[in-house]
């Protein structure tokens, strides 16, 4: 399956992926209206220092610890994509406790959110990838894991 991969050598640390992610998942049509003067809750985040930067989002692991650890049964994996049912999530943060990549974080209402590859929002493909100005984030097939 296709996943999001990052190449930190090419990352500019511009944080555009975070804004594109928050906009893509806002359900709104106008980016300025969706994001301006608001705290954003993107499902991808840029880490780093003044030398190295890179974007981190869900790895859609072969054996996802978050799925196995969720106390509400709110996280599941279907067709290779790890998804969260936010109506079932109670915000206990057990997934944050176990995710080795630090890829989950609470959204605005305290329930957890994570990258679901923009497959179910209006983008249809990861907005972080489409908007990355230096192709530091790509969406492609690399290996067999499901």
């Amino acid at each position, binding site marked *: 399956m296709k996943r999001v991969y990052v190449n930190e050598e090419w990352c500019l640390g511009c944080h555009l992926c975070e804004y594109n992610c928050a906009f893509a998942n806002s359900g709104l049509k106008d980016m300025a209206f969706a994001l301006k003067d608001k705290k954003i809750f993107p499902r991808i985040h840029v880490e780093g220092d003044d030398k190295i930067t890179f974007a981190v989002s869900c790895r859609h692991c072969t054996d996802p*610890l978050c799925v196995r650890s969720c*106390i509400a049964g709110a996280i599941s994996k279907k067709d290779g994509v790890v998804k969260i049912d936010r109506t*079932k999530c109670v915000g206990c943060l057990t997934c944050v406790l176990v995710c080795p990549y630090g890829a989950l974080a609470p959204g605005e209402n305290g329930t957890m959110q994570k990258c679901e590859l923009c497959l179910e929002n209006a983008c249809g493909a990861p907005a972080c990838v489409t908007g990355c100005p230096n192709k530091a984030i790509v969406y492609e097939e690399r290996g067999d894991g499901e």
Partner: protein
Amino acid sequence: MKRYVIVGNGTAAVGCIEGIRACDRDGAITVISEEKRPVYGRPLISYYLEGKTDLEKMNYRPADFYEKNGCRLIYGRAATVDPEKKTVALDGGGSLPYDALCVATGSRPFVPPFEGLDAVEKKFSFMTLDDALALEKELDKDARVLIVGAGPIGLKCAEGIKERVGRITVCDLADRVLSSILDTDCAGFVQKHLEANGIDFLLGDTAVKFDRNTATMKSGKTVEFDLLVLAVGVRANTDLVKAAGGTVNRGIVVDEKMQASVPGIYSAGDCAEGYDASIGANRVIAILPNAYLQGHAAGVNMAGGDVRYGNAIPMNSIGFFGLHIMTAGAYDGEMSEEKTEEGIKRFFTKDGLLRGYILIGETERAGIYTSLIREKTPLDTVDFDLTKKVASNLIFSRENRRKKFGGVV
């Protein structure tokens, strides 16, 4: 066709079913459930009372889970296991033959023999959904509640009912809250937060006798109450395996394949005493993720696979009134601390490894720390000091990051 029997219908049972089905699509699975309902998220009962979830959303798996996985679900109780004949006898008659059996019977509340407890009219445990529903019926905006036990169960109960009762007092023989997972300083921080949210405490003191609506404490103090919640502790349900000749300690002793000492019998979840990598010995780790992971390993091995679950560690994520707490591993070795206005982070390192941590109020990306413990990552290969303030993947080498974020994991 292989016959699998699972006694118990909680998280470990689900892990077991999914583990079996990862290897064997055809074998017959029978699940024996004492609770007369499909599997639900047990730790959600406090969230249910708090109004953060409902009975439908509490289902741990979709409604068609058993059917889709070819499981027969029996509401009943397993009375005995015959490991020679490989059968499970049911209460009220009937027996089920098995090729592989998983005992996932969980635990039950431990109720010490308090003087006068029988005469207390409205007393509750806080373990199952039925317990929560029984308690809910009695909730009243003027009710005075006494909770015996300031562990995770007692305190989550307190949070869950806070807005629906008049007053809550929590007592515990221990001198601090959450004594099984927090040290004195961190417990003090959490206690202050709970008190600021209207919970009263009597610590280092506990109820010794009851006279209808009055509890007399060890110190001689008395507490008047309308509702009594007993959350002193739990005991593993080990009788089935013990009677079948299996080795039982605090829990059913299992190896890293989740096999009990009796051939053909596996065990997983709160009833099992498996390997705890944080202490290098067997111990009951009664937390939900462990139940699933043990159950899954048991299921794979029952179906002929060969997996070992050797990196289990105690770990908790628990929150009260907006304050999140995470803990993991063992608190031994050298302690280093990061304090901010929002909270406390304490790390315990020994022999060049991160051994454990306590995080109060600062839990962002904590799984990175957890993985350092679970994977026994040598701290001289990462820039650990850098990440104490904020957990970051920056601590790893470039090559390590290339594997994590440029490959399939």
